[in-house]
């Protein structure tokens, strides 16, 4: 395959992967896939295969999959540097994600962007944002396009708890409320912004409350429970599509790893991680589907093997040619 055919194939594959999420089993598999890809990324980093930074979303997979499963490919999503889960859920392939982070031409941005800048225009993923808060107003703008053009499309902005302390968050909520934009603000409250526990930076506990200042519904959601995420999203999506305006969804969740690759997360109280592991989104969902531990293991095995293969394909792809540096300015 030429690089171009390869790329076209990946786009088609992204769309197909997205459509798969209508099935519960596939949603489970996608969560497993995210976990597998991130495990792979961590070891590639550890082995010095890839450089820069990386921000794992392990523990938060239900949110990514729940969002992707409740919106369409013509809806737009803005997300942060912690975007592996979102990209994979929306449909971007493991090869395109790993390829990007390895700086290969097969990557979803052809190796120009890197770990913090995934993108999947065909499945609605705008280039992910490495500046905290920057994705909020951009999502509102995407929602404005939909509202203006009279389509029923919506936009979703995904950010962390720490990002609710930055000005752009408030300005966007206000604007979205005044203009009744079809946009959903998803706050992944994983209790930490980098190495700081939320209590050290934020004087309230439930961030959903911050919607009140803008006469906007703010909903607290169990982010470890895929069904709860989907229910909350579905309600917010219908509200948005019906022209009733924006919603803020606070997803209570946890990241299992540190903030970025070097971080051992020693600042976490002992036992906290273990407690959250008891409510692992993959296990919870598998059980709710009546899937046995053995079957779950088998699924993990299969998916891990697929991710291994995808990684090989990604790493076999060349680095981008120097002309690419100048072509997309």
């Amino acid at each position, binding site marked *: 395959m030429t690089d171009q055919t390869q790329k076209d194939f990946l786009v088609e594959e992204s769309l197909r992967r997205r459509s798969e999420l209508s099935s519960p089993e596939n949603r489970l598999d996608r969560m497993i896939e995210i976990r597998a890809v991130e495990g792979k990324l961590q070891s590639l980093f550890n082995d010095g295969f890839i450089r820069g930074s990386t921000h794992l979303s392990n523990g938060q997979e239900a949110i990514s999959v729940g969002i992707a499963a409740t919106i369409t490919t013509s809806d737009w999503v803005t997300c942060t540097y912690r975007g592996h889960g979102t990209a994979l859920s929306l449909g971007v392939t493991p090869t395109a994600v790993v390829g990007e982070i390895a700086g290969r031409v097969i990557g979803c941005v052809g190796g120009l962007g890197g770990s913090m800048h995934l993108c999947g225009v065909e499945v609605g993923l705008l280039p992910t944002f490495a500046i905290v808060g920057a994705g909020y107003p951009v999502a509102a703008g*995407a929602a404005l396009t939909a509202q203006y053009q009279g389509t029923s499309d919506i936009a979703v902005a995904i950010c962390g708890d720490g990002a609710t302390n930055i000005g752009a968050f408030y*300005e966007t909520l206000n604007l979205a409320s*005044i203009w009744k934009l079809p946009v959903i603000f998803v706050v992944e409250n994983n209790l930490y912004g980098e190495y700081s526990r939320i209590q050290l930076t934020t004087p309230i506990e439930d961030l959903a409350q911050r919607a009140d200042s803008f006469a906007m519904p703010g909903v607290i959601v169990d982010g470890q429970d895929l069904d709860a995420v989907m229910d909350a999203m579905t309600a917010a999506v219908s509200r948005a599509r019906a022209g009733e305006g924006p919603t803020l969804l606070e997803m209570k969740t946890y990241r299992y790893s540190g903030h970025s690759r070097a971080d051992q997360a020693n600042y976490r109280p002992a036992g906290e991680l273990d407690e959250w592991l008891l409510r692992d989104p993959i296990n919870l969902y598998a059980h709710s589907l009546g899937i046995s531990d053995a079957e779950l293991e088998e699924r993990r095995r299969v998916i891990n093997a697929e991710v291994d293969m995808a990684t090989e394909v990604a790493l076999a792809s060349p680095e981008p040619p120097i002309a690419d540096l100048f072509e997309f300015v």
Partner: protein
Amino acid sequence: MPKLRMREAVIRALADELESDPTVILMGEDIAEAGGPFKATEGLKEQFGARRVRDTPISEMGFLGAAVGAAATGLRPVVEMMFIEFIGVALDQLTTEACKFRFLSRGKLNVPLTVRASAGAGLGFGCQHSQMLDQWFRGTSGLKLAVPSDPQTAYGLLRAAIRDEDPVIILETRSLYGDRGEVTLGEAGIIPLGKGSILRSGSDVTVVALGQMVKHAAAAIQDGQIDAELIDLRTLIPWDRELVLESVSRTRRLVIVEESPYSGGWGTEIAAEVSRELFGQLLSPVHRITLPDTPVPYAASLESRYLPNAEVIRSQIDAYMTSGLSPEPWWRLEGLARA
């Protein structure tokens, strides 16, 4: 050809683009109901409706960012920043986000966004409402910046900006909004970005100016005693290298008149490039006439000295031509400041 004030030319450019392209929308503080603080959007809400001409809350990051998102997904927003200083609370969205979208999507997305802002000194608005601030935008790949000098360029550059596929900033010198001039409307009136214009041909010295300095530079040489070639740069980023180099290769002397500080002013880039390309061919060093390195003062007597006027420009050009050297700025001559 109608005779329009510059602010009216802006209105016409916006109206013509709103008319010809249904994806064009306008946003900004008090631009719709109130017609804009400088009346540069007057009547547009009445003509095109509140869906297309939108008032915003005081949230520059919010609405500039929303314009970025809208531009990336199918619209062509034109944002008014009432005073260019206000982008100091929202620069991220323009330079770090909008200008990176094409790159970060490997060409799948682009951001056809226009930011209009009033700018410049001369009206007693004080040091937080009187700067040009083009330096905030230099060195950002993917960004263009133009500065009209009269109603025609205000019309033509703005239309070109709105049609451009990437982010463009137009700095509208506030003190020119009331100036009148004949304006060619329609396609013929559109002025391509990146192209300067020779307003007066001459053979002894090239004078390059931008924005309101064009008017003052023109006045400085209008008696014809110096055979100066006057170039209105029109677009600063990217500036018209070919035109300037061609002109200076003939005149072998260059004076740049900037509403920009001596240190870090935009003329340094042109001076550097001309000195490099025409090394050994210049009769005199490139000379810059600039603002002093101070905040913009309020008192009328100070502000009028702060901003180069025709008289100062004339005497500087005279000294340049006579001495063959780049004369010192007035504040050094008067012992007021070193830089």
